[in-house]
C-alpha cells in the first residue's frame, strides 16, 4: 500500500548490495586496527540479530546471551590454544597442576569439530534452559531474571574451574588458524571478510524466516501468548526454538570474536556485556533485524570512540545513551527512520489526496502489553 512508495528507496536489494559492497571493500580504506574493530562489531551484529529474533519478534528478553557468546568463543579459543601449544598442555593447566589434557578439550584439536561445537553447544544449552523454563510458562520478567542468574552461575563456574577454562584470565595468546598466522594482517583481513559474509547470510536467512508465516506466529506469541494457545499453537515450542537459534547465532558470533580479538575471558560473557548486548538491539530498534545490526555497530563504535576520547567520562556517555534511547527512542534508530518516513509519507498522502483515516498506524496501539 502506502509503503510501496518508500520501499523502493529503503527496502530494496540495491541498497543492501551497496552496503555489503562497502563492507567488503572496507579493507581497502581502513587501517588494520580499525578494520579489526569493525570486524568485531560485525561479529556482535550477528549476535544482535539472534537476540532480536528472540526479543523483538518473540518477546522474550534474555539477559544471558553473554554465555552463549562465550561458549562459542571458548570453543574457538580452545582450538586456537591447542594449535598454539601444538597439542601440549596450555600453560594455565600446568599452573593448576593438570597432568594431561582434560577430556573435554580433546575434540577441540580438530578445527571443524570446534566450529560445529561452537554453534551446537550454546544452542544445546539454550535449548535445555528454554525447554525447562518455557514449558513451565516461566515468562517475562521471571525468565529475564533467571537468564541473568544463569550468567552469574556460568561465570562463577568458568572462573572456578580454572584448570580447564583458564579462570578469570580466560584463554589467550594464540598463533595459528588453519595453519595461517592468526594475527597477521592478511589473515585478519580474510577473517574480517568471512565475518561480513556470515553476517550477510545470517541476516538474509533470518529475514526469510520472519517474513514467512513463522514471523507472524512469533509476533502472535509475543503479543498474546495465551491467545496463541487457543489458536492451537504451543508457544513454548516456538520460544524454545528461537531461543535455541539465537543461542547458536551467539555462539557463531563468539567464534568470530575470538578470531579477531584474540582473547576470551569471563569478563566478556558476564552480566554487564549481556546487558549491553540487549542495548544494541534496543538502540537499533527491535523487531526489525536490520536495526540491531546498526545498533551493535553504533553502540560499540560510540563506546570505543567515547572511551578513547574521554577515558574518564565515557561511562557517563554510555549511561546517558541508554537512558536517552529508551526514553526518547523506544523503537530505536529504526523508529527514528520510521518517523521520518511517516512524516514524508504524510506529506505525500496529503498531496495525493488519500483519505487520512486510512493510515491510522500501529504506532497508536499499545505494543508493550505482553512484553512483561
Amino acid at each position, binding site marked *: 500500500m502506502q509503503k510501496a512508495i518508500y520501499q523502493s528507496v529503503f527496502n530494496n536489494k540495491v541498497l543492501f548490495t551497496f552496503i555489503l559492497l562497502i563492507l567488503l571493500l572496507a579493507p581497502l580504506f581502513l587501517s588494520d586496527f580499525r578494520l579489526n574493530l569493525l570486524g568485531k562489531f560485525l561479529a556482535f551484529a550477528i549476535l544482535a540479530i539472534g537476540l532480536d529474533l528472540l526479543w523483538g519478534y518473540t518477546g522474550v528478553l534474555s539477559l544471558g546471551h553473554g554465555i552463549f557468546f562465550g561458549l562459542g568463543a571458548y570453543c574457538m579459543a580452545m582450538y586456537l590454544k591447542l594449535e598454539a601449544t601444538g597439542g601440549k598442555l596450555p*600453560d594455565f593447566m600446568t599452573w593448576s597442576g593438570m597432568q594431561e589434557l582434560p577430556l573435554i578439550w580433546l575434540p577441540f584439536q580438530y578445527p571443524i569439530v570446534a566450529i560445529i561445537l561452537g554453534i551446537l553447544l550454546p544452542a544445546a544449552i539454550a535449548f535445555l534452559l528454554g525447554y525447562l523454563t518455557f514449558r513451565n510458562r516461566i515468562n517475562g520478567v521471571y525468565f529475564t531474571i533467571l537468564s541473568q542468574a544463569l550468567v552469574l552461575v556460568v561465570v562463577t563456574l568458568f572462573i572456578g574451574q*580454572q584448570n580447564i577454562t583458564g*579462570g578469570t584470565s580466560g584463554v*589467550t595468546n594464540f598463533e595459528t588458524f588453519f595453519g595461517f598466522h592468526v594475527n597477521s594482517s592478511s589473515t585478519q583481513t580474510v577473517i574480517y571478510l568471512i565475518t561480513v559474509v556470515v553476517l550477510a547470510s545470517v541476516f538474509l536467512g533470518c529475514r526469510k524466516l520472519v517474513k514467512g508465516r513463522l514471523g507472524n506466529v512469533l509476533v502472535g506469541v509475543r503479543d498474546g501468548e495465551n491467545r496463541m494457545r487457543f489458536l492451537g499453537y504451543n508457544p513454548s515450542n516456538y520460544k524454545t526454538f528461537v531461543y535455541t537459534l539465537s543461542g547458536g547465532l551467539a555462539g557463531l558470533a563468539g567464534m568470530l570474536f575470538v578470531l579477531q580479538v584474540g582473547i576470551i575471558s569471563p569478563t566478556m560473557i558476564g552480566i554487564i556485556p549481556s546487558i549491553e548486548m540487549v542495548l544494541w538491539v534496543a538502540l537499533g530498534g527491535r523487531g526489525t533485524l536490520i536495526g540491531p545490526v546498526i545498533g551493535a555497530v*553504533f553502540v560499540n563504535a560510540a563506546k570505543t570512540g567515547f572511551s578513547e576520547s574521554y577515558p574518564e567520562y565515557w561511562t557517563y556517555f554510555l549511561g546517558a545513551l541508554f537512558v536517552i534511547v529508551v526514553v526518547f527512542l523506544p523503537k530505536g534508530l529504526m523508529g527514528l527512520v520510521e518517523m521520518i518516513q511517516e512524516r514524508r509519507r504524510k506529506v505525500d498522502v496529503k498531496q495525493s489526496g488519500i483519505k487520512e483515516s486510512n493510515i491510522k498506524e500501529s504506532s497508536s496501539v499499545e505494543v508493550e502489553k505482553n512484553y512483561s
Partner: protein
Amino acid sequence: ADNAANATDPEEDETETETEETTETEETSSEDEDTIKVGILHSLSGTMAISETSVRDSELLAIKEINENGGVLGKQLEPIIEDGASDWPTFAEKAKKLLQQDEVATIFGGWTSASRKAMLPVVEENNGLLWYPVQYEGMEASPNIFYTGAAPNQQIVPAVSWLLENRGTKFFLLGSDYVFPRTANAAIKAQLEAEGGELLAEEYTPLGHTDYNTIIAKIKSEQPEVIFNTLNGDSNVAFFKQLSDAGITSDDITVLSVSVAEEEIKGIGADVIEGHLTSWNYYQTTDTPENEEFVANYKAEYGDDAVTADPIEAGYFGVYLWAKAVEAAGTTDVDAVKEAAKGIEFDAPGGPVKIDGDNQHVYKTVRIGEVRSDGQIDELWNSGEPLKPDPYLEGYDWASELSEALSQ
C-alpha cells in the same frame, strides 16, 4: 504490504557509522617531533578501578616530574590514557590501539594478572613494551614486558618462611578464585611441605564475594595459627570486618595478606585489620629520603588524604626506569631500550631497584609489616638487600616440580 516484519531497511544509518569509522582512522597519529607518546592503560571503571586509578595517578606523577626535569631525550612525554574497564579483552583492544594507532613508545598498565595476560600477545605481536607494576604469581617472562612488582620469591616465599619461623606452622590458605591466588598457593603448599608447615585447608571465593560467615566458620573449626590471605579487592573488606565481628583478632590468628596495602586498608578500616601482617616491597613508612620526597609529592598532587602503597610505588619507578633506559639507548626503539634496560638501577622510594636482564623483572627488597591503628604499616622485618627476582622459583628445590612443569 508486509508490515509484519516492519522491514524497512534504513541501511542509511549503517553508512553513517561507516563514515565515522573512516574519519576516526584519518586521525592516525603523525609523528610528532616534540613529544614522546606513552600509553597509560588501567581500569578507570568497573570493579578494578578501586585499585588501578591510584597507579595511574602515580605514573602520571612520574611523567610530570620527568617532564619538569626536561623530559626524555629532550622531548616531553605525552601520556595517552585509556580505560581498560576491568575487562581483559578491552585491555587487549586498547593495547593494540595504543601500539598501532597512537604508536606509543611504551605502555604502563595493568593490575590483575588477567589483564597482563590479555595484553601480552598484543605487545609481543607488535613488538611493544609494557611496564606491569603489580606483584604477581610468576611463571612468566615475556620479552616485551617489564615486571616492576614482586615476583613470588620477593614477596610470598619469604613471607611463608618468616611466618613459619615466627608465627606458627598451621596454615589456612584463603584466596580469590583466579590465577594469582591459585598459583601462589600451589607454590606455598610445596614450600610448607618442604619447610615443615602444615596445610589445614585451602579455600577460594569468587572475586567480589561478600559473605565470609561460612569461611569463618571453617576457620574456627580448623583452628589455624596463620591465615595466608591472597584475597583481592572488595573481598578483603568483607573478610576482615566479618573476621573481627566473629571475635577473631590478630592475637588469636595471624592473617598475612599479600594484596592488602595502605590504600586497601583505608577501605577496610584500620580498626579491624590492626595487628595483622602484610608482605610487600614498599610501605608509605619506608624510611628512605626518596620516599619522603615521593610521599610529599604524591600528597601535594592528590591531596593529604591520599596514601601511597607498593603498586603505586612500582608504577612510579617503572616510568623512571623506562626513562633511564631510553636515555641510555638514545632512542625509544623497543629493541634498543630493552637492551639498554639490562642492569639499569634506580633509587626508588622503596629502596634501590635494578632490572634483571635475564627476565626483565626487578631486584627488590622484601618487607614484612604490621598494620597500625592509623592504617599505616610498620616494618617488622626486611630482607636487608634487594633480592634477585626468580619468577620461576628456580632457586628453590621444593619448587622444582612446579617450575619444571612450567618450563615444559
